[in-house]
């Protein structure tokens, strides 16, 4: 048994390099926010971020100067409003241009699937007539050798590093998650390296009591990092609720580039780690985000008599 637990600071410094493509996935739930903050804290630069559905961390990584590129299919702050740092980069190249490799959600899903499966590309049926296919030269077509119409394809996405967040893992890196699972498993398999942050490291007996709940098997994990409340302001099913107030406040704050810089200076560079960050933004907010318990009915895995 290999113990793969590491601190967040170690995991990020060991597995990320300037200029890498890094995937941070999680669809409004189980988002590796603490990991994004650690990337900012360690002042990485020249990164290309892959993230289907953008949110506050994209604005924050942009504001901190970490990103030269973005691979995405949705660039708003969910229902909370705009991502103004992102809009400044895209609309006005302010402070510098952003390389934006754009797809639809279906296209991003297909890219991760191809990446996980080490295929050069994945076919997708939905792009005929869309300007997205016209704008993005990486969306191509192949002929159907069975005589049907040609079909679009998107290229495999193989991030240098994938980081995802989950409810729990054992110390070997068997990762379990429930609720909305997004594209995490595919992003994990597509990554050349893989770091998983979790709400808690649990005894392997808990994981092994329900092996179908494992979304990522240990043998593809490089580091597993306990980061309680690592997804805030996004929810973690069964742990804490979403903090819409925080997300909405970001869309107000980020209208001014200077406010973004000041926020990052105070809350990220001005804190040693995620725990200190949480104290800085106020632990009392988690009282509002607490949830009531609703447990699943156990299933019987049986055993040979």
């Amino acid at each position: 048994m290999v113990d793969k637990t590491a601190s967040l600071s170690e995991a990020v410094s060991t597995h990320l390099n300037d200029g890498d493509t890094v995937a941070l996935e999680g669809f409004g739930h189980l988002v590796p926010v603490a990991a994004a903050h650690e990337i900012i804290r360690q002042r990485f630069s020249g990164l290309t971020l892959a993230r289907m559905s953008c949110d506050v961390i994209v604005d924050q990584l942009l504001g901190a100067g970490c990103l030269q590129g973005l691979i995405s299919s949705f660039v708003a702050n969910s229902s909370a409003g705009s991502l103004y740092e992102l809009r400044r980069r895209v609309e006005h190249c302010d402070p510098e241009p952003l390389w934006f490799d754009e797809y639809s959600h279906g296209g991003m899903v297909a890219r991760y699937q191809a990446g996980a499966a080490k295929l050069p590309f994945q076919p997708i049926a939905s792009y005929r007539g869309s300007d997205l296919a016209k704008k993005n030269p990486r969306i191509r077509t192949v002929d159907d050798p069975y005589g049907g119409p040609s079909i679009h394809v998107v290229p495999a996405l193989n991030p240098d590093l994938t980081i995802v967040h989950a409810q729990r893992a054992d110390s070997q890196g068997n990762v379990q998650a429930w609720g909305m699972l997004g594209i995490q498993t595919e992003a994990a398999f597509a990554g050349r390296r893989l770091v998983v942050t979790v709400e808690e490291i649990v005894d392997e007996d808990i994981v092994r009591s329900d092996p179908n709940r494992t979304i990522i098997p240990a043998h593809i994990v490089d580091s597993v990092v306990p980061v309680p409340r690592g997804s805030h302001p996004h929810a973690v099913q069964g742990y804490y609720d979403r903090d819409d107030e925080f997300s909405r406040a970001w869309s107000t704050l980020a209208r001014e580039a200077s406010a973004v810089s000041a926020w990052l200076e105070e809350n990220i560079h001005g804190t040693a780690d995620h725990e200190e960050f949480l104290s800085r933004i106020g632990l009392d907010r988690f009282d509002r985000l607490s949830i009531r318990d609703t447990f699943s009915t156990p299933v019987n895995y049986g055993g040979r008599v």
Partner: protein
Amino acid sequence: MTATARTESTAEVTIADAEGPESVTSSELLTIHSARALAARRVVFAGHGLPTLAVSLAQHTVAPEIEIVYESGVTGARPPALPRSISDSILVPGAASVMPMTHLFAYVLQGQRIDVGFLGAAQVDRYGSLNSTLIGSDWDHPDSRLPGSGGAIEVMAGAAEVFLVMRRHTPRTFVETLDFVTSPSPHQAKSAEAGTPPAGAGVTHVITDLGVMTRSEPDEELTLTSIHPGVDAAEVVARTGWDLKVSEALTTTEPPSREELRLLREELDPSRIYLR
């Protein structure tokens, strides 16, 4: 006819019966007409906002057997309160299933398992192509960068039909030429050089604050088929950026019923999260 900027107004619908007059907001009107259009539909892909509310109302009225699929992979959700977005974790406890995103996009949407997909957009053209990507003429440096496709392209291509809900019917949203074709109509797809033709009919219903437009055949234009009470067809035409066809059998929409309003206001969205 050229689209002209006009002061925006919306239908002013009032129902008057034995209980006395009761005015209806534009959001309520859109939701109620979206719900009514769902009669006889079964599997619905609900984007966030009004569509979520419309599907709930349909479940209580015209389509009790309707099944909702959310973009986050949740099916058969029974949230105790309205979800704040399609990825709100409140959708999960008590739901019938949570699918991985690969299944949702590949097997459900591309797999043609959706009867009606709801979409919104910044711009729509006469054949029902939608723009949710950008405003401006320079794609690389747009005047205004919008959220982008999300799953809209897949909903448009894979759902049997698409309902479009537009809160404001204006010449800036109902345009002759889109600044960017995010989700192409079947007509637009036909004229493209390569790729798989869409499986569905595209946008078949557009529900706005002024009325309802419909179309069904690939090369058919959106036609104004009904207007809300108090709306003039000429006003709808004037507030459309192309020469909008008006049905010869134009009708006026049936005002909301007391029961529809009660359900919306008292049971489905008492805190008026979506009914803003």
